[in-house]
């Protein structure tokens, strides 16, 4: 903002200086022109004065002239004076002295004019008298006697000649003599008669006029041609010249000032252009580093989450491997954060190296997603993801990193996803899985571990389940368990089903997880138990019911289940309780107690899905069970898979020795049936032997 104002000011300054220059130029030319005009006026005045003096000379010299010439010149001079005087530039401070002098000139010219008019007046009179005197002298020859009055005639002639000499020589030293002559003539004329007296009187008059006016006329003409007017005008011109020079110097100063300002403003503008460019570059640089900061992890210089979301778009089939250091928190806590940071930097190098070695030139990016989470993004192409993950683990799991001479063991877990949408989230889910499972170092994301879908499904299931319980839609289906020797049905397993209004059937795998997590499992178990007991009462057949660990763990449910069984003592003889031997079982005492109690009511107890995972013979013996149901995964391929056959045979041997009844699940073909029969399994269950049905 500040910069903008400064720049605006500079531009305005520039504009002002520019406008100032234009105005100054106008002002300058104007003043110079005015000065020139005034000067030309002075020169014209000089010319007119010279002309006037020439006319005065003519007026003095010639007998008669045209006075208009003089009048016209005077008019010209008056006009020139008026014009110069009214020039407001001349009448300004700078030319004050010259102007004052010019006013003096004007005043002088006024008196010059008066003198000139007086001169013309006297000159006219003198000229007329000088012209008339010879006429009178001529007349005297005829009027007077040439012999008798020769003295008078000669005297008149003498006066005439001296008058003319005086007039033409402009010499008034003749005046005293002429005055004497006048006196003498006046004496003479007294004694003369009529005509003669008259002539002499007129002669005397004209002589008197000459004596009176000629000196005045001469003096005036001397005064008029003494150059005083020119001198004043010259002095005015000198003063004007000086003030003009002063003015020019002043103008030069402005000239200099404006030029300096102009150059200065150009320099400032250049500076600002330069400055702006520099700032622009700095901003660009800053922008770039900000951009980098935005997409780069400051610690490891790897890319960050932000750049990941951008990079992802450029992949056709992106794969993300998330790598997390196991127990990194401990390293930080134990060695301190700065040590931890160094570990992360070192580890990041190893990740980069691993990625380079494993993925080669394949397009790939490496990220750090905060803390100890690293990621590798690459194109799937034809890569086997599990194999790739394993190779990464080889290079990144169970390795040693040495920092400042201290060696730390680094273990890592991997989560992999190639689910283009929610790539990061799904990889994170897989990673979580891997972290949860201490035996598996990596997980590949699949829909099964997608908790979001699970949750969604759970919610739907829960809704369905609650509805089913409320509306009595939980229905037990019964699957026969056959004695393999007699081929007779010895028992039925009650399997919970939800029969929807549209008669579609929902299987336990679709509602049991929800039931378990929402504690509704107990309700289902109770419904199935009650309905099965009803069936026992009706048919007097053996039935088995699945009781989950959750049912037993929940005190309320457990008590209610035991209550139902204890209330139906007749039926309980025909009832087998199937339980799961599970690694999740935390409290074996509860199991023991439950089994002991139901046995008191005459129930049989069977271990379900034996051999599916964590089965343990020792536990089975301790639980005092009656029947082992071998898991379908072991039976499924028993006719082809020798490993399965070996495991099952071992179980059969063990069971026989412990006097425990054996049931083979998942008998789905004749071959399987034959195999299990041959190895001495007592009973079988499966689609080949009989499907679950609601009615028997």
């Amino acid at each position, binding site marked *: 903002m500040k910069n903008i104002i400064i720049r605006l000011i500079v531009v305005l300054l520039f504009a002002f200086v520019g406008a100032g220059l234009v105005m100054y130029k106008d002002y300058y030319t104007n003043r110079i022109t005015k000065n020139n005009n005034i000067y030309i006026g002075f020169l014209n005045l000089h010319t007119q004065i010279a002309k006037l003096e020439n006319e005065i000379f003519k007026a003095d010299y010639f007998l*008669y002239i045209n*006075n208009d010439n003089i009048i016209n010149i005077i008019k010209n001079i008056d006009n020139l004076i008026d014009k110069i005087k009214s020039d407001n530039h001349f009448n300004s401070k700078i030319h004050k002295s010259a102007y004052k002098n010019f006013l003096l000139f004007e005043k002088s010219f006024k008196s010059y004019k008066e003198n000139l008019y007086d001169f013309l007046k006297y000159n006219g*009179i003198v000229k007329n008298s000088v012209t008339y005197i010879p006429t009178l002298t001529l007349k005297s020859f005829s009027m007077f006697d040439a012999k008798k009055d020769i003295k008078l005639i000669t005297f008149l002639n003498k006066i005439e000649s001296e008058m003319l000499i005086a007039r033409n020589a402009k010499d008034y030293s003749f005046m005293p003599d002429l005055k004497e002559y006048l006196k003498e003539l006046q004496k003479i004329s007294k004694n003369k008669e009529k005509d003669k007296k008259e002539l002499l009187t007129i002669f005397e008059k004209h002589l008197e006029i000459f004596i009176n006016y000629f000196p005045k006329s001469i003096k005036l003409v001397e005064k008029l041609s003494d150059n005083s007017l020119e001198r004043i005008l010259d002095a005015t011109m000198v003063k004007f010249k000086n003030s003009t020079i002063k003015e020019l110097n002043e103008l030069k100063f402005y000239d200099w000032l404006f030029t300096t300002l102009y150059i200065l403003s150009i320099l400032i503008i250049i500076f600002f252009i330069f400055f702006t460019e520099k700032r622009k570059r700095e901003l660009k640089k800053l922008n770039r580093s900000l951009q980098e900061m935005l997409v780069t992890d400051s610690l490891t210089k790897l890319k960050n989450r932000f750049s990941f979301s951008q990079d992802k778009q450029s992949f056709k089939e992106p794969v993300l491997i998330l790598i997390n250091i196991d127990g990194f928190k401990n390293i930080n806590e134990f060695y301190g954060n700065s040590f931890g940071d160094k570990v992360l930097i070192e580890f990041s190098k190893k990740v980069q190296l691993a990625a380079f070695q494993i993925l080669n030139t394949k397009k790939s990016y490496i990220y750090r997603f905060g803390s100890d989470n690293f990621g590798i993004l690459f194109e799937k192409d034809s890569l086997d993801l599990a194999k790739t993950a394993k190779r990464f683990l080889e290079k990144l799991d169970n390795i040693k990193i040495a920092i400042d001479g201290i060696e730390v063991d680094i273990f890592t877990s991997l989560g992999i996803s190639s689910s283009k949408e929610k790539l990061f989230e799904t990889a994170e889910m897989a990673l979580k899985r891997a972290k949860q499972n201490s035996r598996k170092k990596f997980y590949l994301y699949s829909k099964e571990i997608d908790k979001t879908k699970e949750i969604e499904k759970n919610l739907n299931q829960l809704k369905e389940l609650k509805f089913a319980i409320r509306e009595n839609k939980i229905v037990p289906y019964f699957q026969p368990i056959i004695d393999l020797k007699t081929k007779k049905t010895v028992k039925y397993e009650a399997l919970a089903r939800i029969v929807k209004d549209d008669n579609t059937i929902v299987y336990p795998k679709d509602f049991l997880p929800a039931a378990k997590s929402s504690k509704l499992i107990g309700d289902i178990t109770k419904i199935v138990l009650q309905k099965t007991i009803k069936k026992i009462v009706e048919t007097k057949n053996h039935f088995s019911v699945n009781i989950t660990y959750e049912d037993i763990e929940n005190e309320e449910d457990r008590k209610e289940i035991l209550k139902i069984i204890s209330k139906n003592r007749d039926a309980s003889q025909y009832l087998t309780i199937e339980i799961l031997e599970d690694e999740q079982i935390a409290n074996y005492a509860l199991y023991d107690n439950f089994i002991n109690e139901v046995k008191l009511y005459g129930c049989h107890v069977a271990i379900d899905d034996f051999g599916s995972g964590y089965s343990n013979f020792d536990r089975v013996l301790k639980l005092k069970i009656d029947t082992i149901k071998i898991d379908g995964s072991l039976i499924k391929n028993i006719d082809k898979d020798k490993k399965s056959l070996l495991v099952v045979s071992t179980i059969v041997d063990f069971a026989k020795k412990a006097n425990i009844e054996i049931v083979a699940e998942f008998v789905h073909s004749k071959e399987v049936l034959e195999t299990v029969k041959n190895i001495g399994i007592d009973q079988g269950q499966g689609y080949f032997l009989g499907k679950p049905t609601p009615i028997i």
Partner: protein
Amino acid sequence: MKALITVLIFTITAIFAKEPIEPIPKSIKYNKQKAQLGKVLFFDPNLSADRKVSCASCHSPEHGGADPRPVSMGVHGKKGNVNAPTVYNSYFNFRQFWNGRAKDLKEQAKGPLHNPVEMNMNREKIEKYLKNNEYYKEMFKRIYHKEPNYEDTLDAIVEFEKALITPNSKFDRYLRGETKLSPLEKKGYKLFKTLGCITCHNGINIGGNSFQKMGVVFPYKREKNTPDRFAITHKKEDELVFKVPTLRNIALTAPYFHDGSAKTLKDAIKMMAYHNLGFKLSKDEIEALVAFLKTLTGEKPKILR
């Protein structure tokens, strides 16, 4: 051809330059609209206090632009102290009034308008009259784009007076070589020069371009209220000093002199010869001078025809 014309002009100029009298130009530039308005104003007696005296009352076109009465008469029959000089060709005078107290016609025009014994008006009265007159209102609006006002009134009158020139007198035509003077007239002109009249009466107006004293040789009697140079300067030597009057149309402008004391041209010539030249003229000489002076009568100004 061009060279010929140049030579011709030089020759003509040389001929005229010899003569101290110049002919009046055949025409003069002036603003016709303004002059027409000025003419109406010049003849309008409403510009005087008693609505009887106009400029033309004393500057009569019938009498060569001058007053036939010895002294002029103003409002309510009041007598002035001077014989009104002719208004014709007054534009060429170097000063105005007998004693030259006005430097130009505009300054002159104010005099009679304000003089209590002449028109006895003032600026306000004049403007009041003109502003209430439809004709003047329209004319001023048309010419000056303003309401009637004092300054423009003077301007219009001056413009009219500029037009009052009397060209083509016999003498002017003689000067231009268009006609010949009779022997008597020629004799008169020669006397005019040799006797010294020309010393003062020269130039375009044959006078009107210098001051001179009345009664240089034999003194002239001075009345107390004589409007001479003395009335302005109060210098003894300026007593009876007047602007030399024009001799144009002199045959039409009797009586003569500032006081109208010379009733005829002959009287005037005699008086001038006596008082200012100091001699008596013969009958023949007077006759010749009169004949010459009569050749100075020009045409009536066009604007008055």
